[in-house]
């Protein structure tokens, strides 16, 4: 019941007029950016982070805005899936399967409305799960000593590739790049590493600069390249005719998808792709021959959409309670928390209770806002998507530069961001994933610190690392996480591809 009290206080924070306004703005911009074909939520959030800094928002407002962006991007991802058959990111792939056929049959508006309702239900279910599970896990986190944390970080790295990851070697290369960048700065014994006497490097590389550079700036470079060779895609929506019965028909699918998605989201490394995949296949199994999956069955839109939105809320659980992000987007949010001087983990639930519960309440409110935005206003988003990039790009670039400059007021950071942008462009051309780079950069210093602490406490005895039941379980899970993709991954990917065909 303590939780309920905190949640009510949280609503107090989230419903403050200015916070509500920024939640609305975040939801709107998030949907818009999620709807851009080929742009995932991690990039979306990364592009909008500088906005929070340029506006000089207080921590809770900045977080509320960006969690709304996060939720909005998940909603928006479905627009291009349904209308263009181009998924914004991997989790949105499943939505194409029945969404695009529906659009081809002239039912684009219905598909969009159904997916919005399903997204709403999926998120709602998972946010309730988050409210119930997070405080419990936060209390449990007190039993984590340095050895257990070290094992937990290993687990996070072991599951980095994810079950559906494509090229494990490139994932490892990416994580190593991140870990190497993480060694820059003064380490916790006061020794300078790779600082070259440059004062700005003493505290290491700022995560936010790295993220905005790697994701946002490189995205801009890609955008320019892609648009230079082609025009803006044409999209159109019909007039909506959706009855209450239609919504009732997709309700069970959405609930099942939401629950499954939440579970998949909590598990490290699994994430939204798995959530939407399970959501889809389960619906197909349950409905069986009666359905017409692959030819525009509304349940085939509802299941995976609820699944991937559920997973995105589920992924917040390990991030908020243990400080270990399970996905690229939560990694970006973690970096944001750290740069706002808020350390995720068990303490955050007591020391920054107003912020945590404000954010959770904002997630709930954001979902209502998104539902409102997405059903009647979907036409506006579609129209905005045909705004020529020559107007959009300069705005995004300006926001990125102003935002990063306003963090520390030094031009050094701007050069640094551009360098990261160029590096991100090259890495993406080489098909080296960027999320492991960020995770390496974020988690590397923590992992090193915990290893050193564990050894310090045990006077240099290495066996301390697997001296508790908890630590052993985490090591075992890490082992499984490392091996499983090689066994199950190809199988799963083949099935995903078969389903997709």
């Amino acid at each position: 019941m303590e939780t309920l009290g905190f949640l009510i206080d949280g609503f107090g924070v989230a419903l403050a007029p200015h916070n509500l306004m920024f939640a609305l703005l975040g939801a709107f911009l998030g949907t818009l950016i999620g709807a851009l074909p080929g742009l995932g939520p991690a990039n979306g959030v990364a592009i909008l982070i500088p906005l929070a800094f340029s506006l000089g928002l207080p921590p809770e407002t900045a977080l509320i805005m960006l969690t709304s962006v996060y939720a909005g991007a998940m909603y928006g991802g479905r627009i291009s899936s349904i209308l263009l058959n181009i998924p914004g990111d991997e989790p949105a792939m499943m939505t194409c399967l029945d969404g695009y056929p529906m659009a081809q049959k002239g039912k684009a508006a219905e598909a969009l409305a159904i997916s919005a309702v399903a997204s709403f239900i999926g998120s709602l279910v998972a946010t309730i799960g988050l409210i119930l599970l997070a405080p419990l896990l936060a209390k449990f986190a007190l039993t984590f000593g340095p050895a257990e944390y070290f094992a937990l970080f290993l687990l996070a790295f072991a599951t980095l590739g994810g079950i559906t990851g494509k090229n494990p070697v490139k994932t490892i290369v990416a994580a190593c790049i991140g870990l190497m960048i993480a060694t820059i700065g003064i380490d916790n014994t006061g020794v300078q590493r790779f600082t070259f006497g440059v004062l700005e490097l003493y505290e290491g590389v700022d995560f936010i600069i790295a993220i905005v550079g790697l994701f946002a700036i490189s995205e801009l470079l890609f955008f320019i390249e892609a648009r230079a060779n082609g025009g803006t895609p044409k999209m159109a929506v019909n007039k909506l005719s959706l009855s209450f019965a239609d919504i009732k028909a997709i309700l069970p699918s959405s609930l099942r998808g939401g629950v499954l998605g939440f579970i998949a989201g909590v598990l490290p490394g699994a994430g939204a792709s798995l959530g939407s995949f399970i959501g889809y296949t389960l619906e197909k199994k349950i409905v069986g021959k009666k359905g017409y999956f692959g030819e525009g069955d509304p349940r085939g839109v509802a299941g995976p959409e609820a699944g991937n939105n559920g997973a995105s809320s589920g992924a917040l659980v390990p991030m908020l309670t243990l400080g270990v992000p399970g996905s690229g987007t939560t990694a970006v949010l973690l970096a944001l928390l750290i740069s706002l001087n808020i350390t995720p983990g068990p303490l955050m639930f007591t020391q920054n209770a107003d912020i945590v519960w404000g954010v959770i309440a904002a997630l709930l409110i954001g979902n209502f806002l998104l539902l409102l935005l997405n059903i009647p206003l979907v036409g506006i988003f579609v129209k905005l998507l045909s705004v020529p990039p020559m107007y959009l790009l300069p705005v995004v670039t300006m926001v990125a530069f102003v935002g990063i400059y306003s963090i520390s007021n030094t031009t050094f950071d701007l050069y640094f961001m551009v360098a990261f942008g160029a590096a991100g462009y090259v890495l993406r051309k080489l098909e080296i994933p960027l999320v492991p780079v960020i995770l390496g950069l974020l988690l590397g210093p923590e992992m090193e610190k915990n290893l050193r602490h564990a050894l310090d406490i045990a006077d240099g005895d290495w066996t301390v690392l697997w001296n508790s039941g908890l630590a052993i379980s985490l090591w075992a899970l890490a082992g499984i996480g490392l091996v499983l993709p090689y066994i199950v991954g190809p199988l799963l990917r083949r099935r995903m591809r078969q389903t997709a065909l």
Partner: protein
Amino acid sequence: MFNKTMFRTPGLHKTPLTLVATAVLALGSSSLFAFEPEGKVECIAPADPGGGWDFTCRSVGNVMETLELVPRSVQTINMAGAGGGVAYAHTVSKREGDDQVLVAASTATTTRLAQGQFPGMNADMVNWIGALGADYGVIAVASDSEYDDLPELMSALKENPRSVKFAGGSAKGGWDHLKVLITAQAADVENLPRIPYLSYNNGGEAMTQVVGGHVDAFTGDISEAQGFMESGDLRVLAVLSEERLPGEFSDIPTAREQGIDALGPNWRGFYMPADISDEAKAYWVDAMDTIYASDEWQKVMTRNGLMPFHMSASEFETFVHKQIDDIEQLSKDIGLIQ
């Protein structure tokens, strides 16, 4: 042994301002000052928003506006990097003679200066204006710990310096670590470098580890310990202040009354660029005294757990130099610097 004064770079920018400042102060009326700030006054917080320095700038800025010590507003500029080093370098190299900018500082600033972490720079290159309060150091243990008071903890260290492990929110050699060493030194513990110190990202994380039973003792500031103290998870063995702290903290014994003469104030104050006019310096020094005496500031202090601590002008300058010398000596003793 080296004489420690050898390590003090000759005062290139040091001017006999302090004498003038005290002299003017003695007259005690601001109407005599030739200097009045005009237009925008800046306060540089050498960290990201949300930290202690940021708080110092914003809260003092507000009080200065209320007391009409500034013509218009005080603009806080965040300039993070190198634990304050970027802002220090900026003040030294780009702001010389600028009498409309204040820079927030604390014991973290003097610690880094003492340990040579601002390369090529020293305390004589700026003007130290004043301090407006302090957060005092504490040594604490989990409520179920075997140690009941500070002498007990220290005698365990005397027997075996590795027997008690400390967790704190600063880096090795940082202020939280130094507080352990200052206390242990005052208690005649030998072999200081062997005392294990684990550094965490902040005091909160360090306390979680102590409360969770993973590390033996916590070193930090009283404001950090408040939450866990109230919940009953943490027992504060000693506060490193001269006298007992006011209000709800009055139950906590000082190290001094337990026979261990250790002090650890983490003061909050300001420095300004070198080569500002005597009148300007006198104005700001006087402003510090006015702020500290005001009800507005006393309210800010109570609300934010800041304890009484005030110095300005030459007294503050002497204090800063002494603190730097002490920390430098201690850091050499434990082999942190050569």
